[in-house]
């Protein structure tokens, strides 16, 4: 979610001061950060005196505040409704599946020294598979991007979940041509901003010696 917000701001030339919050060190729970975001989660923004948490709420705020090009979060009622439909579905599907795998296969064992819970990983993989089927057959059906013919905040959020598990050699487009084409188009649109935002996750994977995770 942090990468999604970062790329959105870069794509739209929204100037910002970057404050690194070290999640591995638990900095999100520090007293200083809790004054920024009571929930103690990243990302968070502070725009003057106004603070916003939750990546999707932040993206919706930025799109309105900075009057970004309409395609990012269209004003048309039905176009917006379809993007909102994805944004809601995202939490319990894309995020739960992809981050479920990453968290339990990488962060748990390699950062928090917790044993792998194979049942939890298996459930996350099942969720991811169902998620990718829905993307392939519904959200991307007849569209180049999620529920739209142009890139939006929905694509940024989804892409960031998948690029994370690519570190485990999980190729979300392997058996799903719509997903494959979508992924390539979003990355192409983002250009250097994509590479910049993902440097850190590539470095992290190398540093943690992350290995391939089976996924069909």
């Amino acid at each position, binding site marked *: 979610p942090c990468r999604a917000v970062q790329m959105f701001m870069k794509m739209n030339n929204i100037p910002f001061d970057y404050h690194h919050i070290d999640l591995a060190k638990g900095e999100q729970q520090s007293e200083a950060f809790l004054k920024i975001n009571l929930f103690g989660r990243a990302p968070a923004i502070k725009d003057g005196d106004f603070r916003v948490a939750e990546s999707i709420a932040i993206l*919706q705020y930025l799109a309105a505040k900075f009057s970004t090009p309409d395609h990012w979060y269209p004003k048309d009622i039905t176009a*917006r409704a379809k993007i909102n439909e994805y944004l809601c579905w995202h939490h319990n599907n894309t995020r739960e599946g992809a981050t479920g795998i990453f968290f339990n296969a990488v962060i748990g064992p390699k950062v928090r020294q917790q044993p792998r819970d194979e049942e939890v990983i298996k459930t996350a993989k099942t969720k991811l598979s169902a998620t990718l089927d829905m993307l392939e057959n519904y959200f991307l059906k007849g569209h180049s991007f999620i529920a739209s013919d142009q890139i939006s905040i929905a694509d940024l959020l989804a892409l960031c979940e998948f690029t994370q598990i690519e570190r485990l050699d999980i190729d979300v487009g392997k058996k799903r041509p719509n997903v494959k084409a979508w992924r390539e188009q979003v990355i192409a649109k983002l250009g250097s901003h994509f590479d910049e935002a993902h440097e850190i996750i590539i470095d992290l994977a190398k540093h943690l010696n992350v290995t391939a995770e089976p996924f069909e």
Partner: protein
Amino acid sequence: MAKLQFYFDPLSEPCRSVQLFLEANKIPYEAKLTELLSAETRTEQFKKINPVQTIPAIVHGDFKMFESIAILQYLTAKFSTPDHWYPTDITKRARINEYLHWHHMNARWKGGLLVVMKYIYEPHFYKREVSEEVKKASIVALKSTLDIFEKCFLKDHKFIAGDEISIADLLAIGEFIAPDIIGVYVGKGRPKVEAWHNNIKKALGATYDKAHEALYHHMNDIKNLVPPIDY
């Protein structure tokens, strides 16, 4: 404008939230009762309405959609409902959006639904074994979620967004009131939550009672299944 078709089950928390909104705003709709416990969402026919096979879902002319929060956002725009439901002011809307997105993985999945699933539906309707430990953990999760809800959202306000009711309140109360049917009332020991609940009931009047009729009627069906809970 075509008449809205509303696919719902009054026992479903997000369905009640949308129903409350439709009724409070007198938006005419065709009620399409789709019963979860009879697996009516699993039919091929319903799959044509919603490929994800969840409720609530709406059909509005040629337009179909699912996800309760997205539906509420659509309805506020399409029917130009009073601004307080989902304010157009950027900062007021951001505050509500913060709640809406926190809601999914917190109030919805670590709230009232978790408790009713573990105590009622999984053991008695879906015939899955649920240990006492897992049941008790659901109450712990609910309390933790309520702590965050009070501290980060409700604070000292009458409603989540401030002085006026919004779609955030309808979603939150939908989830939090669910376990009341087994004696787990979220306002117990939490005067701010109780006051907030009363504010909602007052703001919605008879609409609130009507939307909850089926839930409290259902209490009669399940009262002998669940022993008293220490809450």
